[in-house]
């Protein structure tokens, strides 16, 4: 099948071709214009921009905690407005089926669930496999489990840590490794209530810093393309900017990704002792090329916070709205908290909103800042179109600012920042850079040989509308969306690494699980066939 997109404006910062050019797809892959061949299918996309499919690096779309949030909040579906559709189960609010449908309609073709507890990997993958159309991936959580902490306490070799991480990544089918408030979940079980970068986990005598640095080094040695994905300590607390600054300073020449930086952008100035430190953090990021970050932008309205940072979530119970929550002390890296929350246009909400935008606008390199709301923690991903508009229009920011708390905004630099993201910068931030950060060489751009994940948007004054309803979306060359509606159903893959497991480590794992849990290792692992879809996984290679 040969497909030709004619007359569009191509935004493809990776390949410096002419802006006005046709895009050709053959058998699911992008190709150079073929000589003397006629397309089987031609789409007139004049008046439209053409980009690679978007990639979301951090969105909680499936797994135990997301599902517990559904259980807790059957009334929450209004946040995921159903829209008429004619595809199976895609009207099911906040379901896996709707997740794939809504993402595709916005031109997103790959989404990463960033928090898979290793012991619940099968559950996560069952959910990801039921998200239609798009490709998925997930990061394995490490750093709060007895096995890792014992290795570090006992001064075991870094080779053994590498073998363990490789085994976890391989057996859980992860694309990378995440650490969440390193050591705090273990410490919370021992009744520790606050935990900073140099605090030490009781029983193990290992600091949060030591855990992060050890995992960061191991991920790099193993050639895992995505740098260690760090959810730092002290999320959401006034003064957390100091923790973020400490973490940024700890990269020491090795790549590190800092998740949802907005939630650490807070100082202690002002009458309410809650102020913006975004400008300071942005400067630190600009000066440290080892660091990439995503924002976790706050948008207003009802949402639910879902996090494996159990210590943080426990302290948030009192602010739950509606008044119910789940706190789970899970096995090792599992667990977390589900706390519903409504972001109001009050002092706190306004400040958080502004901090996110300041970070977006003051961090100069679009290759190192990533577009997220930490769905659903800052806002549901369905708020993305409005966020694009805020980034691309200083007028839209000014207009929204007039509705918000003026005292809060005065403690930020937002009003003075007039930068507007260009379409090229949007394409870098949401396509090219995520592909590079995750090690996905086959996507994120429109060069020949890339898979044909293509999003076409109708240009218009209404930026939010343009990004809400893609004119056309192709996934691996299949036309899946037309005029903002899914028209064709297909199943994507879950992208995973597959480092070869070390035999001695498998034996160690077998012994460990039998001794500590009284169960054989096969209770914790699963074959691909358990997913019951054709070839549910696709392998991504590690760096050599």
């Amino acid at each position, binding site marked *: 099948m040969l497909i030709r997109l004619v007359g569009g404006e191509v935004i493809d910062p990776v390949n410096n071709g002419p802006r006005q050019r046709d895009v050709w797809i053959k058998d699911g892959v992008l190709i150079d214009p073929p000589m003397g061949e006629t397309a089987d299918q031609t789409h007139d996309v004049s008046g439209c921009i053409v980009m690679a499919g978007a990639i979301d690096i951090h969105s909680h779309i499936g797994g135990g905690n997301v599902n517990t949030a559904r259980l807790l909040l059957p009334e929450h579906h209004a946040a995921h407005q159903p829209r008429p559709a004619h595809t199976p*189960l895609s009207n099911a609010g906040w*379901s*896996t089926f709707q997740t794939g449908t809504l993402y595709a309609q916005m031109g997103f073709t790959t989404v990463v669930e960033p928090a898979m507890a290793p012991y619940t990997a099968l*559950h996560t993958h069952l959910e990801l496999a039921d998200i239609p159309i798009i490709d998925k991936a997930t990061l394995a959580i490490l750093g709060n489990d007895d096995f890792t902490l014992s290795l570090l306490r006992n001064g075991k070799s870094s080779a053994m840590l590498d073998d363990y991480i490789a085994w976890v990544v391989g057996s859980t089918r992860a694309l990378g490794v995440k650490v969440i408030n390193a050591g705090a979940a273990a410490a919370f079980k*021992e*009744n520790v209530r606050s935990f900073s970068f140099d605090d030490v986990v009781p*029983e193990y005598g290992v600091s949060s810093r030591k855990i992060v640095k050890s995992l960061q080094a191991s991920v790099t040695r193993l050639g895992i393309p995505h740098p260690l994905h760090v959810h730092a300590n002290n999320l959401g607390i006034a003064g957390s900017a100091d923790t973020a600054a400490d973490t940024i300073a700890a990269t020491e020449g090795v790549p590190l990704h800092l998740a949802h930086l907005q939630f650490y952008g807070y100082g202690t100035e002002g009458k309410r002792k809650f102020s913006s430190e975004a400008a300071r953090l942005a400067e630190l990021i600009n000066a440290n090329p080892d660091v990439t970050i995503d924002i976790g932008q706050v948008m207003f309205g009802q949402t639910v916070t879902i996090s494996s940072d159990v210590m943080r979530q426990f302290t948030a119970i009192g602010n739950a709205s509606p008044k119910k929550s789940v706190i789970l002390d*899970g096995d090792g890296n599992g667990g977390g908290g589900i706390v519903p929350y409504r972001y109001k246009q009050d002092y706190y909400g306004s400040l958080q909103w502004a901090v996110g935008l300041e970070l977006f606008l003051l961090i100069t390199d679009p290759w190192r800042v990533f577009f997220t709301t930490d769905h659903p923690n800052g806002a549901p991903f369905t708020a993305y179109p409005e966020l694009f508009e805020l980034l691309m229009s200083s007028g839209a920011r000014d207009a929204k600012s007039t509705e918000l708390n003026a005292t809060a905004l005065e403690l930020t630099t937002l009003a003075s920042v007039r930068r507007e993201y260009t379409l090229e910068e949007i394409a870098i931030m949401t396509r090219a850079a995520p592909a590079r950060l995750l090690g996905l060489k086959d996507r994120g751009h429109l060069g020949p040989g890339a898979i044909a994940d293509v999003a076409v948007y109708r240009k218009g004054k209404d930026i939010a509308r343009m990004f809400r309803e893609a004119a056309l979306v192709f996934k691996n060359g299949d036309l899946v969306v037309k005029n903002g509606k899914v028209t064709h159903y297909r199943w994507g893959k879950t992208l995973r690494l597959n480092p070869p497991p070390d035999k001695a480590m498998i034996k160690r794992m077998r012994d460990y699980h039998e001794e500590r849990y009284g169960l054989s290792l096969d*209770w914790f692992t699963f074959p691909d066939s358990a997913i019951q879809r054709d070839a549910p996984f696709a392998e991504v290679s590690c760096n050599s």
Partner: protein
Amino acid sequence: MSVAWVGSQPVSLMDAIQNAAKLLASSRCPVFTLDTDVHGTRSAIALAERLGGAYDHGLGETLANEVSLFTNHGGMFTTPGEARRRSSLIVLVGEIPASHHEMLESWAASRPDLGDRNKRLWFHASGSGTVSADTSKLVRKLKAVSLGGDGLSLEGALAVLRAELHGRHVASPLVNVAQFRQALNKSQFPVFVFSGTSGEAAGLVMLQGLIADLNKNGRASSVFLPADDDAWGTALTSLWMTGFPPRTGFSNSLPSYDPVRWDVQRMIREKEADLHVWMSTRGDETPPARGRIALISLSKNETPTAGAAVTISVGKAGVDHDGVTYSSRVGTFRAVAASAPSQLPSISSIVQQLAEALPGRRALPC
């Protein structure tokens, strides 16, 4: 050996599928009673959506009680693995289903290797309602100290316990509270083990209130052991597929959750439903007393189900075929291999065939 029947007549599987599909196609309001693994549940819910039906689990009443703890309140929980490794003080709450007794006994045979590492102590909190002989036997075996109150419901007993732990004076104290207080002081991570069978919904909420109290200054948590692992697995699967737990119905492909409106047994009794698709893979079960509506039975039986228009024999995941089930041993899903592989088809394969025999012949999404 026959695997399919129309009425009591053995027929080919193809004939049974055709007959069942005809009933489904002409039904105005089909209802589904589920009892299968994750993949059977996925297919059945996809079929219910296509037909505009409603679904519930065979143990829908108990499941609804368990679900309501979350939809109304939430709470603090831990996993069986963490409790085994970390908790030196376990409090069993009310009636604990027999299917979990073996696991609890295995905890008793092990010693915590994390946290305070003290020898494990056991208590049993209950109202004055009787617990089953099985649970009484378990309580004796574990040498669990009774924490009960005469004439009190579970909610009442736990309320008294909360008050006593707060140091408030109570008119009629529970037995053994002093001993319990002593155990609490020594244990860094006490865990309350409960189930949907432990007591009424208000009792489960009171238990979470007690745990919240204990977390003000120290740590404590609970292990939720579902009354039935398969039912809980169905609830979790339903949540990601539709956003809702069972007792969900579809109209115009929009799911809605309503534990009264979509109570399938009620819909059958009150003739709101006109076709019942009854699934049961645990073997030799019969559908509950029913109203006079047509019945399609997908069950692990060697004989036709009495009163069913169509019966198809199906296998059980983990016995006849591979599958994925919820397991309280690990507090999550587990891949299960067939222990005695047989020719009996899986629910999911039969449901797929039913969908493809319907007008339009479209495959289900799962």
